[in-house]
C-alpha cells in the first residue's frame, strides 16, 4: 500500500483551506491525488513537482514547498541562484538592475543561471555532433533541462530514458561552479553559506527529502519568484528611478550581467533557438508533452535530433510560481531582444576543451531515476486487470470524480488494489 500524507517533496498542502472541490484531481499527470473526507490527499511518491495542482487551486490550499525570504539575515552569506525567468517579470528593466535589486535585498552574491545555459548549449551541440557518428544515444534526444519532464519520463515512459540527453543540466553546472569556486573561501573561514534557488516552479525538491550528504555542504533553500517579488519590485523601482548606480564589485562574469539569449530561455523554444542543430523541436504544455512522448515511444520523430520539452505552457514563463502573466512576460522578453539583440558571452572553443575532459557528461544511471520515480505501485496481474474490467462494467464511466479518484479507470484500479471501496461510487450507491 502506498503511503498517503498531505504534503509531498514539492508541494505543501494546507488542509484547512481545502474546499474539497477536487479541481486538482484530474490535472495531476501521474494521478497522485485523491479526495478523502472531502479533502485532497497526495500519494507522495507519485508527485513529480509539476505544480499543476497549485495552478488550479482557487483556495490556494496548495503551494510550493519553498520558504519565504524572511530567513535572509546577516548571520550567513546568502547567494541567489537566479533563473533567467526572473528578468521577464520586470518589463522594461535591464537584467543587471534586477540582480542589483537582489543585492539590495541582502544577497551577497547573485548568480545568473543563463551563463550556465550557454555552457549547456555548447555541450549539447557537441554531444549531438558526435552522436551523429557514434550513435551512442537514440534519436530524438530529449532535453534534460526541465526536471519535471525527466521525472515524467521516469514515471510514465521509462523506455525513453536512454533518449534523455546525458549532459549535466544548467542548474547542476551552476551549483557545481558555485561550490567549486565561489564559496570555498567563506567555508574555509568558517562562515555559514546558504544557497537560495529562485525558481519559476516548485520543481526543486525540499532539501529535507534528499538523502544526507557525505561531505559538509552549504544549506539550500528554494524560493518561488512570487515569494521575493513584492520585496524585489520595490528595490527595482528605486533603481529604475535613479540616474546611475554603480554595480557592486564582482569576481565572476556570471554575477553581474545577462544577455538577450538569457531572457529568451524562459520562452518555449528559447533553449533551441540559438543552437546549431538543424532538426529540433520545442514542445510546451503538459498535455502536449505527454502526447509527444507517447508518439516518440511508438517510434515517431526518429528523424528529429533534439526536442525541448517544457511541461508549462509557453515554457518556464508559464511556471506556476511566476509573479506576472506569462503572455505579458513573453512580450517583455520579445521587446528586450528587439532592443538589445541576442548574444553569447562564452567562446565555443573554451567549452569544447572542457568537454574533452568530460566536464559535462552526467554519470547518472537512468535506471536509478526509475527507482526514484518509476517504482511505485505493485504491478497489476492479469487477474487484477480482469477485475478492473469488471468494476468498469459496473460503474457508469463518466469520470465524475465524486468517489475521490481522478477518473473511473483509476477508481477501478484503487478498488482492486484494496485502496477504495466500490460503494464510494455514486452510481453504485444509486442502484
Amino acid at each position, binding site marked *: 500500500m502506498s503511503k498517503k500524507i498531505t504534503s509531498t517533496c514539492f508541494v505543501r498542502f494546507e488542509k484547512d483551506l481545502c474546499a474539497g472541490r477536487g479541481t486538482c484531481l484530474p490535472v495531476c499527470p501521474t494521478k497522485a491525488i485523491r479526495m478523502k473526507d472531502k479533502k485532497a490527499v497526495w500519494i507522495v511518491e507519485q508527485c513529480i513537482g509539476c505544480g499543476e495542482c497549485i495552478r488550479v487551486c482557487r483556495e490556494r490550499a496548495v503551494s510550493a514547498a519553498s520558504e519565504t525570504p524572511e530567513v535572509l539575515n546577516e548571520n550567513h552569506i546568502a547567494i541567489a541562484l537566479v533563473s533567467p525567468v526572473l528578468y521577464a517579470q520586470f518589463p522594461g528593466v535591464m537584467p543587471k538592475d534586477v540582480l542589483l535589486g537582489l543585492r539590495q535585498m541582502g544577497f551577497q552574491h547573485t548568480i545568473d543561471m543563463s551563463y550556465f545555459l550557454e555552457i549547456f548549449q555548447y555541450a549539447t551541440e557537441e554531444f549531438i555532433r558526435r552522436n551523429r557518428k557514434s550513435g551512442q544515444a537514440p534519436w530524438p534526444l530529449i532535453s534534460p533541462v526541465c526536471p519535471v519532464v525527466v521525472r515524467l519520463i521516469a514515471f510514465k515512459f521509462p523506455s525513453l530514458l536512454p533518449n534523455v540527453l546525458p549532459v549535466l543540466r544548467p542548474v547542476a553546472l551552476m551549483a557545481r561552479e558555485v561550490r567549486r569556486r565561489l564559496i570555498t573561501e567563506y567555508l574555509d573561514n568558517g562562515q555559514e553559506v546558504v544557497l537560495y534557488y529562485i525558481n519559476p516552479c516548485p520543481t526543486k525538491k525540499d532539501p529535507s527529502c534528499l538523502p544526507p550528504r557525505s561531505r559538509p555542504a552549504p544549506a539550500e533553500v528554494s524560493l518561488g519568484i512570487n515569494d521575493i517579488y513584492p520585496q524585489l519590485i520595490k528595490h527595482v523601482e528605486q533603481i529604475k528611478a535613479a540616474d546611475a548606480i554603480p554595480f557592486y564589485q564582482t569576481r565572476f562574469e556570471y554575477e553581474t550581467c545577462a544577455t538577450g539569449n538569457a531572457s529568451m530561455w524562459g520562452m518555449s523554444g528559447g533553449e533551441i533557438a540559438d543552437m546549431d542543430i538543424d532538426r529540433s523541436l520545442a514542445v510546451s504544455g503538459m498535455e502536449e508533452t505527454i502526447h509527444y512522448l507517447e508518439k516518440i515511444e511508438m517510434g*515517431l520523430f526518429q528523424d528529429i535530433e533534439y526536442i525541448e520539452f517544457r511541461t508549462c505552457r509557453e515554457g518556464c514563463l508559464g511556471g506556476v510560481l511566476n509573479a506576472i502573466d506569462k503572455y505579458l512576460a513573453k512580450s517583455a522578453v520579445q521587446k528586450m531582444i528587439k532592443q538589445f539583440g541576442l548574444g553569447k558571452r562564452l567562446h565555443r572553443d573554451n567549452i569544447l576543451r572542457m568537454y574533452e575532459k568530460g566536464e559535462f557528461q552526467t554519470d547518472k544511471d537512468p535506471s536509478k531515476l526509475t527507482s526514484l520515480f518509476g517504482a511505485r505501485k505493485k504491478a497489476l496481474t492479469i487477474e487484477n486487470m480482469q477485475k478492473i474490467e469488471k468494476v468498469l462494467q459496473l460503474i457508469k464511466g463518466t469520470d465524475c470524480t465524486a468517489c475521490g479518484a481522478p477518473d473511473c479507470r483509476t477508481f477501478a484500479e484503487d478498488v482492486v488494489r484494496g485502496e477504495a471501496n466500490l460503494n464510494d461510487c455514486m452510481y453504485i450507491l444509486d442502484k
Partner: protein
Amino acid sequence: MSRLKKSFHIKARDFIRAGEASINVQNLLKSMDFDPRLIRRVAICGYESEMNVVMHGGDGTLSIEVDDEKLILKIVDDGPGIQDIELAMQAGYSTANDDHREMGFGAGMGLPNMKKNSDRIQIDSPKNQGTMVRMVFFIPEKGITN
C-alpha cells in the same frame, strides 16, 4: 492459464486520432509493469499496423492478448487486403499515395519494422477479404526469447 484480452477500434482515414488504439495498448501494458523495452517494441508494432489500417485499410480493430508467457497483438480490418505480401515486407516498398507522403508517411518501413520488432509475425490477406496481422512477443525470462 489466465488470459486477458482487450480490443480497440480503428477508423479508416482518421489521421487526427490515428495512434490512439496503440496508446491504449501501451497504457495497459504499463500498468502491468512489463519491461519498458518490450512495451516499446509492442508500441512501435501497434502504431505501424494502426497506420496501415488508417492509410490503406477499412475500419478495423487492434487487440492485445496477454497471458503468462506472451503478448499477442492482432490487427484486423475489412479493407482491400495486401496485394503482394512478399513485396510489402521489403524495406522501402510502399503503396502510399502523395497525400500520405505529404503527411510524412509512406516510407515503406511499416511491415519491415513490425517484423523486426516482433518475435513472430503472421499475415493473412486473401483478396478483398480484409487483412489480419498477428504478432507475438515473448515475455522475457518467462517464455521463449529467441
